């Protein structure tokens, strides 16, 4: 038995055919509707398994909930989670609840993957094309929802995106023989890209004009509805990132902002991207080609328009 770790989840090799993937993630509510929150929290937790090219087998609920609060709301959260678990093909096998003033919900997920086909963030090669399978902006819209400043179109689009499983994107990249992927969460696009650069020893170029952004995100970011995590990410990363002067502060904030249940960031060799794109089409995955990895060098990212 061998043991290795990667960013998205822990991987434990059981035998030559099977490795376990284990992950845990839970969130505080970012939308008002408890059923939708349950779906989003579950999709977010399951995503780590998909990012590693695996498929989820079992899940356990993790619940923090005030004991005096309406139990009907909690059952809606759990119903949302259960529906997403079912959609993923995994089985809910239990859970644990703790009394807490602020509700939280998520999952511990166990999945499996063939040990030779684990998709990691260490396998990006110079020349690889970079794809992203969900639009950016969930962190900014979630901040705006807290402030009751997000319009219905933004809320609806963000919920739809966050609740979407990365299952189809995972199936597509596995079929196309992809070696490198990660899912976008708290470190934002640029933070997760930097992790890949560091782990793989490559540099990256981002085509900012290619990025897909959720409705209203730019307006909300311009109003200052930018989550704290975006500033932390920028503080941590900006010395190693060069952004084209013609790009405005709004798009910079969007690229640094944390995402909730974001899409898969996938690298594919420049001569194999056709297979990935046709697999995306077969699996009805929304995708953008938004960057390229470059040869070794000081680990850094440059953002250009296109």
């Amino acid at each position, binding site marked *: 038995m061998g043991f290795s770790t990667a960013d998205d989840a822990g991987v434990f090799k059981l035998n030559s055919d099977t490795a376990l993937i284990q992950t845990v993630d839970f969130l505080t509510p970012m939308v008002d509707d408890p059923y939708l929150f349950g779906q989003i929290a579950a999709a977010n937790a399951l995503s780590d398994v998909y990012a590693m090219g695996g498929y989820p087998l079992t899940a356990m609920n993790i619940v923090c909930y005030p004991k005096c609060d309406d139990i009907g709301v909690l059952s809606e959260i759990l119903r949302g989670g259960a529906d997403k678990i079912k959609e993923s093909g995994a089985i809910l096998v239990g859970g644990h609840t703790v009394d807490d003033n602020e509700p939280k919900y998520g999952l511990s997920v166990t999945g499996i993957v063939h040990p030779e086909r684990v998709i990691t963030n260490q396998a990006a090669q110079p020349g690889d094309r970079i794809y992203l399978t969900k639009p950016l902006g969930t962190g900014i819209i979630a901040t705006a929802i807290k*402030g*009751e*400043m997000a319009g219905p179109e933004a809320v609806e689009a963000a919920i739809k995106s966050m609740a979407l499983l990365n299952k189809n994107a995972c199936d597509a990249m596995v079929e196309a023989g992809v070696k490198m992927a990660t899912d976008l969460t708290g470190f934002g696009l640029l933070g997760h890209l930097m992790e890949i650069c560091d782990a793989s020893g490559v540099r990256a170029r981002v085509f900012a004009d290619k990025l897909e952004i959720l409705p209203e995100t730019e307006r909300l970011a*311009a109003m*200052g509805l*930018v*989550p*704290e995590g975006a*500033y932390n990410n920028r503080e941590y990363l900006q010395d190693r990132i060069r952004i084209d002067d013609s790009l405005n502060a709004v798009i910079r904030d969007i690229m640094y902002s944390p995402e909730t249940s974001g899409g898969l960031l996938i690298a594919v060799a420049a001569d194999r991207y056709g297979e990935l794109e046709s697999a995306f089409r077969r699996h009805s995955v929304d995708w953008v080609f938004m960057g390229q990895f470059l040869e070794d060098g000081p680990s850094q990212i440059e953002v250009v328009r296109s």
Partner: protein
Amino acid sequence: MDNVVDARGLTCPQPVILTKKALEQLQDGYVVTVVNDRTALENVIKLAKSMAYEVDVEEKGEEYHIHIGKGVDMTRADLDHYDGVTFVIKSQFLGEGDSELGRTLMKSFFYTLTQMGRAASAIIFMNSGVALSTQGSEVIEHLHALEQSGVEILSCGTCLDFYNLKQMLMVGQVSNMYNILDKICSGNKVITL
């Protein structure tokens, strides 16, 4: 009397929300928002600028006092936002180069403008541009559509006289340099084509 928003210790987006409420109720004077972390500082500055206010930040130890007031730019930004753009059309052709291409581009420009909702507030035709607002123009129907939707169409009177087109005007009003300058200087964004 200044309005003070004490947003110390509040997490995002509360400082932004409270500042926005204070600004919306502000008649005149200033709002001072007090924060003690950089996220709140940057977000409140973004809010103020997006609402076209002027911002001055005073650093006091661990705290930032963000002074937000209505400056001269306020009216200008509001007009830009709500009234759209004034276009000055100085030629019957769009851009320099081949005139056939310039003619096609101009047709395409006005058609596109009709599809863009309230992008324009006024269109002013100068020099050979008046060929576009007079008989024989290929864009008359687009100009009519724009006029219907509330866009002011003005043609320079001196130019109409010079090209002997005054009787041929098909859309909008004849105007003079005084009115035209008044439009250009009104604070709306002006784009010359």
